[in-house]
């Protein structure tokens, strides 16, 4: 019987190794898997490459991993924000590498990773600093740059409801990067508000199919777990 549920976030992230590539969903604080991030701060894996759209937007996002010195490289479209001070400091002293990818290119590189497409041409960033050093080619009279797929060892995803098979639905714009990141990691870990019986989710309305989700944590159980650990 398929059973993807983990007792708490600590157990769900326990095997993440130093040097892992981690995709983190969310758009700022919206749809952010902040409990998984908190568990990874506790777990302490180092030298991570983190792929996430917004880095400095909220304190409980990727910024927490940076402040805890767990990150060696960031791939994102929007590094700045009120919680970017530690990223800026580490970038300037050379302890963190930063790769800025236009948001649509970032999303498409992740989709490509999940879809078995190693590289694609896009008009985005042609003739700009972010296209420099990349292979270019003309299509339809327009310059395009060749971009490479991104695949994670792990993805952290925030969903609204899940079933035991790992099907996910999201709530409104919580969706953002979560469905695409779910497709592009060897191990996708989802924190969700609710886990329902198999068959309760509308088959027309499942935004992330069961095949893409490997571990599930229900947030209330997690909170109880953390209380137990702390107590």
């Amino acid at each position, binding site marked *: 019987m398929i059973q993807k549920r983990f007792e708490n976030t600590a157990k769900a992230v326990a095997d993440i190794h130093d040097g892992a590539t981690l995709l983190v969903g969310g758009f700022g604080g919206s749809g952010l898997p902040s409990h998984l991030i908190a568990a990874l701060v506790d777990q302490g894996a180092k030298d991570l490459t983190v792929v996430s759209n917004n880095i400095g937007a909220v304190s409980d996002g990727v910024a927490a991993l940076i402040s805890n010195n767990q990150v060696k490289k960031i791939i994102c479209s929007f590094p700045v924000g009120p919680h970017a001070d530690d990223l800026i400091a580490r970038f300037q002293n050379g302890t963190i590498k930063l790769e800025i990818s236009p948001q649509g290119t970032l999303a498409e590189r992740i989709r490509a990773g999940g879809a078995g497409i190693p590289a694609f041409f896009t008009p985005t960033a042609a003739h700009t600093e*972010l296209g420099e050093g990349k292979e270019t080619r003309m299509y339809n009279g327009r310059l395009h740059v060749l971009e490479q797929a991104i695949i994670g060892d792990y993805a952290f995803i925030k969903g609204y409801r899940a079933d035991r098979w790992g099907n996910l639905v999201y709530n409104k714009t919580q969706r953002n990067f979560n469905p695409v990141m779910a497709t592009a990691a060897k191990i996708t870990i989802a924190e969700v508000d609710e886990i329902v019986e198999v068959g309760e989710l509308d088959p027309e309305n499942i935004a992330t199919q069961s095949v893409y989700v490997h571990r599930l944590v229900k947030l209330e159980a997690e909170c109880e777990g953390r209380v137990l650990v702390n107590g």
Partner: protein
Amino acid sequence: MVKDQQKVGWSKIELASRVAQDLEDGWFVNLGIGIPTLVADVIPEGREIILHSENGLLGLGPKPEPGQEDMDLVNAGKEPITLKPGGSFFSQSDSFAMIRGGHLDAAVLGAFQVSIEGDLASWKVPNDPLGRVGGAMDLTVGAKRIFLCMQHTSKGNPKIVEECTYPLTAPRCVDRIYTDLAVIYVTEEGLVVHELAPGVTFEYLQERTAAPLKIHATGLAQEDILQQ
């Protein structure tokens, strides 16, 4: 109706309204962060303009009433908004497929600099180690029309220039520039002023613009948008 000299030009919300006036019935329009997000609050009555937000939403509505905010329903600036009937949600990859695929009629964006040829610089200031590109590069290559919506100057320095000195977002992509002082079209013949904001003269505008401006052939409009 020329206003008191103390207050020259359009306020932010007046500027957003002026942009909204030029969005046509049935258009699909992306709103960038900053002043452009205000456009959602001032769509003219009776016009169906379907607003797109890069984070995966079509059918963006105005700001919610106080107390009705839902942090799972936000715009490109992560601010709470509402969804209009007929709206829909989708992923960021689907959202940018829509943008890059040329399906949006217009994008309303902010800018650091725009050149006489419509080059746009909006993601990085020269000495910033980081930059923040977001969706700007995808929107500038993908949307059918790029309308800038911005303050005419930044700390007194003109943002409309002969040539951008900041790193480019995309070359030759801007169609129109809406500022607190004027409406300017980027054309083959250069920057053509179509309208002046209340209290603004052509000379006043040219003084604050680091590129030569032309007057639209049929003359300049100058209206108080609040009267409309």
